[in-house]
């Protein structure tokens, strides 16, 4: 499920998976019961939904077919199904991209120094705006 939503999950080793699961668990513990309940319901329904949509339970589908099933559910006229996919994929993103080191891998290294911080010099040098002929200002 996580890999179908978030392909970088396939590269996680055992320790990284544990970390991802910990992050997801911590996040879920802070969600209202209503939200967690909906996710649970969706996960429980997924094998049956998959049977309906793809003729096999979710767990027995290839990765590409899993993605396809989730895509179909994501476009479903039933809002609860769309929300189910959205909730699960968001949790997967949180677990995978929320791990230490991931943000740097993606190229995000925020620095309180801002312009004078870590960003390579050719990128940071602010150049004059090519800009608007007559600058319009919001009052």
């Amino acid at each position, binding site marked *: 499920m996580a890999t*179908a*939503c*978030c*392909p*970088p999950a396939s590269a996680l080793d055992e320790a990284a998976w544990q970390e991802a699961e910990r*992050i997801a668990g911590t*996040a879920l513990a*802070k*969600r*209202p*019961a*209503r*939200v967690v309940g*909906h996710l649970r319901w969706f996960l429980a329904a997924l094998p049956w939904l998959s049977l309906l949509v793809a003729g096999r339970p979710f767990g027995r589908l290839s990765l590409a077919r899993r*993605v396809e099933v*989730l895509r179909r559910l*994501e*476009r479903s006229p039933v*809002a*609860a*199904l*769309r*929300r189910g*996919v*959205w*909730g699960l*994929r*968001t949790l*997967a*993103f*949180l677990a995978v*991209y*929320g791990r230490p080191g*991931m*943000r740097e891998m*993606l*190229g*995000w290294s*925020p*620095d*309180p*120094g*801002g*312009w*004078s*911080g870590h*960003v390579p010099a050719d*990128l*940071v040098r*602010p150049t*004059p*705006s*090519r*800009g*608007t002929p007559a*600058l*319009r*200002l*919001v*009052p």
Partner: protein
Amino acid sequence: MSAWDVIVIGSGAGGGTVAAALAPLAEAGRRVLVVERGPRLGVAHARPDELASADAFYAGAGAAFTEDGTIALATGQVLGGSTALSTGVAVGPSGAVIDGWRVPGLPGADIEARAAAMVRDAGAAYPHDATLNENNRLFEEGALRAGFSPERMRLLVRGCRGAGVCHLGCPNDAVLGTHALQLPRAAAAGVRIVTRARAVAIAPQQVVVRVTADEGWPAGDHVLTAPCIVLAAGAIETTGLLLRGGFGGALPRLGRGVTCHPAHVVVAEHPRAITNAVGHPTAYRVDRTTEDGYVLEPCFSSPLVTARNLTGFGPEHAQVLAAYPRLQMLRVTARDRAADGNRVVLDRDGEAIVRYRLAPSVRDALVAGQRAAARVAFGAGAVRVHVPAADPPRLDRHDMDALDRRISAALELPGRVSLSATQPLGGAAMSRGPRDGVTDAHGRVHGAPWLRIADGSLCPDSPGVHPVLTIMALAERVADAVRDDLPALAGAAPAVA
């Protein structure tokens, strides 16, 4: 039990402004208290962290949603409220819009004048050319090429170094939220501020405050009394406190008419790395509210927020995120209008929650805004644009001529597209009387003169995208009335044991 003259619940745009405006009372020896649910921000982030900030500074640990789970609601739960996490965009209120609310005794010109004075006082300024990053420049260039008229916006910031992490709490304390401007002034005048303290119940001239890990007071429940209590806990929580307090019986419109300015993020991929994560995120806007109901702006968010904001999943989603240093981001915000069905209600646990449905006009505005955003991004040289209401969301340059077909209202399906809102308003609106709203033009709750409201919940309708100055100006008027009314209220207050 401890006795105060005025208790202000919440320290954001509304509460912080009231606290500062009541400073003369504190200087004159009156006991004024601000009760804030969140912690102090501090300049704590040598290393900005998405998960830690969401957890520490946002309501619902950064994962609050509308009742049906389709719109993420981000509001600050920290000293200074949402203003402490804002980008500091300061858009003056429109007197005409406020006059259109038809609240007796609320002249739009007065709100305009107060907001203008606040802007002067804070020293809000237009960002200089030299501080603009490419995410902003590309917005301007693309907007001009697409035939729009971009305008530069004034910012409530001081000493911005362009750390680019406003939404995590500025590590340089550059955002001039109430935590930086109004609350320090109030504290210097003797206003007491207690943090990590949640008002859980209100009764006539009494409030129960639950203090957790403390920054001043012992943990546990505290019963506080005051002849005047000002609710400024934000549109959702203020309305929730009133509903829990049983005010709904006498005030049938309590909770109704909520607006939130739902927004999409459109993400564009450029062929080269651009300056995006460094620099102030939002210096421009294209305002199409009158014609099409939306505002378009540059924005930029950290990877986790970006991952959530993107619609879809799987390999395409991962490819967009992998292009992070090359991404340009644009926010499409709809100016929704107050509708009866959109309201704050209490859930099974008694917590306030927003019941909200996208009106067809809002959906159309969001779709029009996404088409415009795609045109702006392609106009700025993007090679691909990721648009929520397209299926698949990825559009290439060769799709440029088919934007109206590819980006469609039929695909703007709640739950499928990622929607977020940072500006919930209404729920305890100003009105003529108790049948059509909750307070008068000075935030006095109809039928409960000891109780005042001074935050975004006062707005009977959307004041326009970027409401902070409007809320502050309204709150200042509320504080004026508190100062005027206090002697009479104190005279009528029951003696405290």
